[in-house]
């Protein structure tokens, strides 16, 4: 078995994983404020690179313990080097380079968005299957055309707020707190009828771009004008609108490209209404759908190590001079 060590630190989660042959997760440790603050003493701040510095080595140790492997069992080191917060990316990259240099292991730089899309391969999708991937999280909302041998093209993206960001902001607006996704998800599960119809932004536009800023404004306006609507009803109607747009646009793209496989990844893919609606429609239309379990939808290093394996066996390695980059570097393809 070829074992790849993956390192992810592009935003606020420090994560290390070991994946065998691209799909067998032998260890996957994520330090975020919810799961790890007890063990490592204190909440991990959302942003600070220096917190990654504090947490990366304990997480690395923990991952080796979990897998029962040592550095000698590792064939190569894969690390997220773009896009993300520069200060955060540098911490992960430095750890990766140091390990690669000391232990003479190949280094593989990984694109964070491509890694998210690879999470579908940890849920059964065969790598290289042409498909459409929806990557929706707090920082990204992108539609990708994934081609054979890992080629990826950006075919749609948000023009303003990311989908996850809209959840967080509406949650805050309604007084439910941060992060907004899980709270609104739970609330909506118990709310049957809202009587509110929020706009579906960009649904009829001919491209595959998204816009969620206006929806946030519509929620705000509704709240001010209609005191009879409960916060639960507003949250539910908001979620329905977001889900509707994400599902519709993804299906439009799949249809237009003549593909029959779709994957949904990123933190927002943990939303139960979104998963249900995708499943319902894909079943009806006979499309293959891949949505990883929630822990592989949010930021994690298993997706980095898994994709790293695919690069490793194709000899797509990087030099120790590899740098970080805040931008995705992807240019929107005209459809």
């Amino acid at each position, binding site marked *: 078995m070829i074992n790849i060590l993956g390192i992810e630190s592009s*935003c606020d989660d420090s994560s290390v994983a070991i994946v065998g042959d691209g799909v067998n997760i032998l260890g996957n440790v994520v330090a975020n404020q919810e799961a790890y603050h007890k063990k490592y003493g204190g909440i991990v*701040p*959302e*942003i*600070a*690179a*220096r*917190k990654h510095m504090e947490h990366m080595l304990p997480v690395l140790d923990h991952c080796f313990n979990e897998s029962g492997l040592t550095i000698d069992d590792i064939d190569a080191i894969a690390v997220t080097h773009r896009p993300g*917060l520069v*200060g955060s990316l540098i911490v992960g990259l430095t750890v990766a380079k140091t390990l690669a240099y000391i232990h003479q292991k190949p280094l593989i730089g990984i694109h964070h968005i491509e890694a998210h899309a690879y999470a579908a391969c940890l849920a059964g999708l065969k790598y290289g299957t042409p498909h459409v991937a929806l990557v929706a999280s*707090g*920082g990204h909302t992108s539609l990708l055309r994934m081609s054979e041998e890992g080629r990826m093209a950006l075919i749609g*993206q*948000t*023009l*303003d*707020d*990311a989908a*996850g*960001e809209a959840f*967080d*902001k509406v949650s*805050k*607006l309604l007084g439910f707190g*941060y992060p907004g996704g899980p709270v609104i998800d739970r609330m909506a599960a118990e709310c049957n009828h809202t009587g509110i119809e929020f706009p579906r932004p960009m649904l009829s536009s001919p491209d595959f771009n998204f816009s969620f*800023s*206006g929806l*946030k*404004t*519509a*929620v*705000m*306006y509704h709240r*001010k*004008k209609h005191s009879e609507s409960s916060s639960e009803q507003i949250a539910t109607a908001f979620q329905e609108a977001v889900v509707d747009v994400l599902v519709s646009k993804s299906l439009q793209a799949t249809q237009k490209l003549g593909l029959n496989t779709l994957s949904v990844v990123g933190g927002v893919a943990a939303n139960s209404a979104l998963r249900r609606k995708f499943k319902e429609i894909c079943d009806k239309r006979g499309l293959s759908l891949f949505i990883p379990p929630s822990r592989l939808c949010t930021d994690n290093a298993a997706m980095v190590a898994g994709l790293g394996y695919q690069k490793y066996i194709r000899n797509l390695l990087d030099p120790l001079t590899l740098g970080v980059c*805040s931008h995705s570097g992807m240019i*929107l393809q005209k459809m």
Partner: protein
Amino acid sequence: MGYYSIKTNSAGETRRLGAILGGFLLPGDCIPLLGEMGSGKTCFVQGVAEGLGVSNDTIICSPSFTLINQYSGRIPLYHIDLFRLNSCRDLEDLEIIDLIHGDGVTMIEWPQIVLPGLPEIILRIEFNWDMTSETTRIISFISDTDRFDALVGALHD
């Protein structure tokens, strides 16, 4: 102290107003943007980017998640959003302070936690809702610099 208030009736008008301001900005300018969620701040910055000559192909997204987005135009634009931050301690971690009054224009959404620490502000902008229509906003410019009069003249036209 100069004060000038203007009503925009659509996101497009808010963006155009931003574009006019963009044409007046100089390296080192730092502008806090105050206003509720959905009041038009990011939309306004999209216009400023246009006025600063950032390429039309560039999508100006909300920086709430990334905290800082950087664009290259006639002069660099740093679009900052402190929505997710709770304290200045977080801010020091980010080293945002180094950007302010540097080589570019800095537009800061949710600037409340840094306002007391900002040295010299040439202009602050406030965004408010006008409840007559969902798309109407009242945008107020507050400044005490000499450059303000010229700006108000341009905005007025």
